[in-house]
């Protein structure tokens, strides 16, 4: 082997560990899940080829549609409530004159440090009937019944609220970084030209942060569509009458509670296709906007 050939081989050798791990733990399971989605399973030992029957059943499965509906409601909440709030917070905490802004940034980001599981447990404690802080406070302030069942009657708003607590600070960091890169000369020039704060935001700031905004929107949508831990812990499953059932919760229930990994794989692939379509759509929109 010549010295040049040996040197040429080196990058591939360095890549090899990653490729092996990626192949064994990502590509092979992906391939296996395609095979599984064409099989019907019943418990750990029974499996039979059913072709596209899992996908056919999925198209007529009312629970799947309920899961999709709930997931989309949560996603809408994430995009239309969470992101504007994150942007607003970022703009507020980007003001040089604001005292304690570094501490506030840490405060808003801090839920990320404890993780979603802890936050879900805390949310369940806060929203508990009678003993929960929220009902205690509302009872004392406006006389709301201590028994008001948030986790039975207001499941999606509660989930959205808990996600707000978790992710507003996280998304705020992205917006903050983007805002700090907005050309100050442009803003000043707009001010000199007589543009007010609203006009400056729409004409200068928003276009400048649009690429980051698009990325955050995409990240938010993809994360929301994969919602699992929050309802699983908060509602110990999917909640009364499946009001908190999400696509991934349904996937989990089908695969690990009912024991049909084939059907769960089919759900997983439908979700994967949905996610891929959204990602591609976002890229195309972003490209068009840039053009």
């Amino acid at each position, binding site marked *: *082997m010549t010295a*040049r050939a*040996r040197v040429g081989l080196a990058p591939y050798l*360095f890549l090899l560990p990653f490729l092996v791990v990626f192949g064994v733990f990502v590509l092979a399971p992906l391939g296996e899940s395609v095979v599984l989605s064409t099989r*019907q399973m019943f*418990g750990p030992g029974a499996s039979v080829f059913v072709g596209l029957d899992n996908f056919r059943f999925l198209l007529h499965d009312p629970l799947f549609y309920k899961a999709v509906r709930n997931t989309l409601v949560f996603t809408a909440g994430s995009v239309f409530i969470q992101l504007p709030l994150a942007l607003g917070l970022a703009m507020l905490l980007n003001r040089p004159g604001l005292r304690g802004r570094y501490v506030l940034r840490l405060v808003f980001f801090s839920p990320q440090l404890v993780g979603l599981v802890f936050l879900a447990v805390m949310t369940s404690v806060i929203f508990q009937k*009678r003993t929960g802080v929220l009902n205690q406070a509302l009872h004392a302030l406006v006389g709301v019944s201590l*028994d008001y069942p948030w986790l039975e009657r207001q499941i999606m708003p509660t989930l959205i609220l808990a996600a707000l607590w978790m992710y507003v600070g996280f998304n705020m960091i992205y917006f903050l970084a983007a805002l700090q890169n907005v050309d100050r000369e442009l803003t000043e020039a707009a001010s000199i030209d007589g543009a007010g704060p609203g006009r400056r935001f729409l004409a200068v700031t928003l276009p400048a942060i649009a690429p980051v905004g698009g990325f955050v929107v995409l990240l938010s949508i993809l994360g929301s569509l994969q919602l699992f831990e929050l309802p699983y812990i908060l509602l110990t499953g999917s909640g*009364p009458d499946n009001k908190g059932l999400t696509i991934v919760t349904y996937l989990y229930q089908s695969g690990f509670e*009912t024991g049909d990994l084939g059907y769960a794989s089919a759900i997983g692939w439908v979700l994967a296709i949905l996610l891929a379509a959204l990602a591609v759509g976002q890229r195309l929109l972003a490209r068009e906007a840039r053009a």
Partner: protein
Amino acid sequence: MAQDREQPIAVARAFALRWPGWLAWLSPGGWVIAAIAVGTTVVVVGGGSARPSGEVRMWTFAPPHARMYEPLLEQWASEPDGRRVDLEVLSLPALERRMLGGFLSGVPVADLIEAERRVASRAFAGPLDAVGFLDLTDRLREDGLLDAINPASFSPWTFRGRIFGLPHDVHPVMLCYRADLVEAAGIDVSTIETWDDFARVMRPLMADGDGDGEPDRYLIAFWTTFPDQLEALILQAGDGFFDEEDHLRIATPTNARVVASLAGWIAGPGRIAADVPEFNAAGNKQKIDGYVVAAIMPDWLSNIWRQQMPELAGKLKLMPLPAWEPGGRRTSVWGGTMLGIPRTAEDPDRLWELAKRLYLSPELSRALYEEGDIVTPVKANWSDPIYDRPDPYFSGQAKGRMYLDLAPQVPRRTSSPFNTMAMQRVQDALVGLVELLRDRPGTDRATLESRAMDLLRVAEADVRSRMDRNVFARGETP
């Protein structure tokens, strides 16, 4: 730019050329990485399966069970042909994952697995030869254990007529009530025979003493979010979700009557129930405060209350569950554990002997009650005077004997893997009825039962659609 690209190549070449022969194939850094990769692979592959030969592995999910078994296992190991038993306590989800993962992939699991009902039922699916546990039916028959053990205790481990587990318990259910509150109000519980009696006789305890417009306490801890209690109450009435041949039957008049009654407990003018959960600090606080008068209590739960709410010692009493109709069943069942031998286990005959020693011995039955308040399913051990011992926590009642007196009435259960799904759909039906009652509190009983039947039909149709598309559940074995 070209010079920039050449520079690293030149450096790498300079390194490589200093090494003689095959060593020069990689740079020193490359060899270090390769050595780490090989070393860690050897450790992972070689170290993972190290297991002393002759050792038996056993998994359980309950630390108190493990404590009870240890002396017996040590004794077994010291016998001439005994073997050391490696007893591992796993959390229930971990045990479930390991067990199902092993059954799915064919990787050996423990030689003995103690599984809780809901976990074990995941293995009871598909054709008989696909069940990961050894069929124990013939062994049980040959050893006369089918008659020696309370018959209902076999039902959760019976799949397609074959038994795959040795039962650990009976888990009869009684009603636990706050004797201090009930007796202070001058209420005589001996006049209670049915649930209607219970609501009527106990009603004075729901007075609004503080004038806030709401009762100071409710009569029973029950809610739409309590699936185990819901199942226990439906089983008590007699129908359950599956018949004795494991055919689905959710929409029955009995089930409709029970679900309608339960909805009336939660909402409407006849409300008597409150959302006071088990295994939860807030729920425990409410129980200690007397926010609920009674709770549904299997034998094992009495132990948890004793551990978690010592403040209630001497304030509680037990009574048989009120029946759904005069002369009806006064108990039900909640929970259950079995000991199974996986098919992959070596020397199943020896393991069967060990399993019998663990579950059938009088010493262990006694320990099970002393440490866990659980009554044994082994009928020969029911004469042990320990069950007649007064229990100070329950105001001096002979709790063990009271549970054992109800053991023969405990209803049989299904092992169907669709049982959890059926229970969830019935829960959905209950939620629907409760919402109806909240919207229209004046709904009369007949309308409520008729609506309950409609909702149970929807529930049954949904579960049936999933069972019907399952070739294995249809009984076909491709």
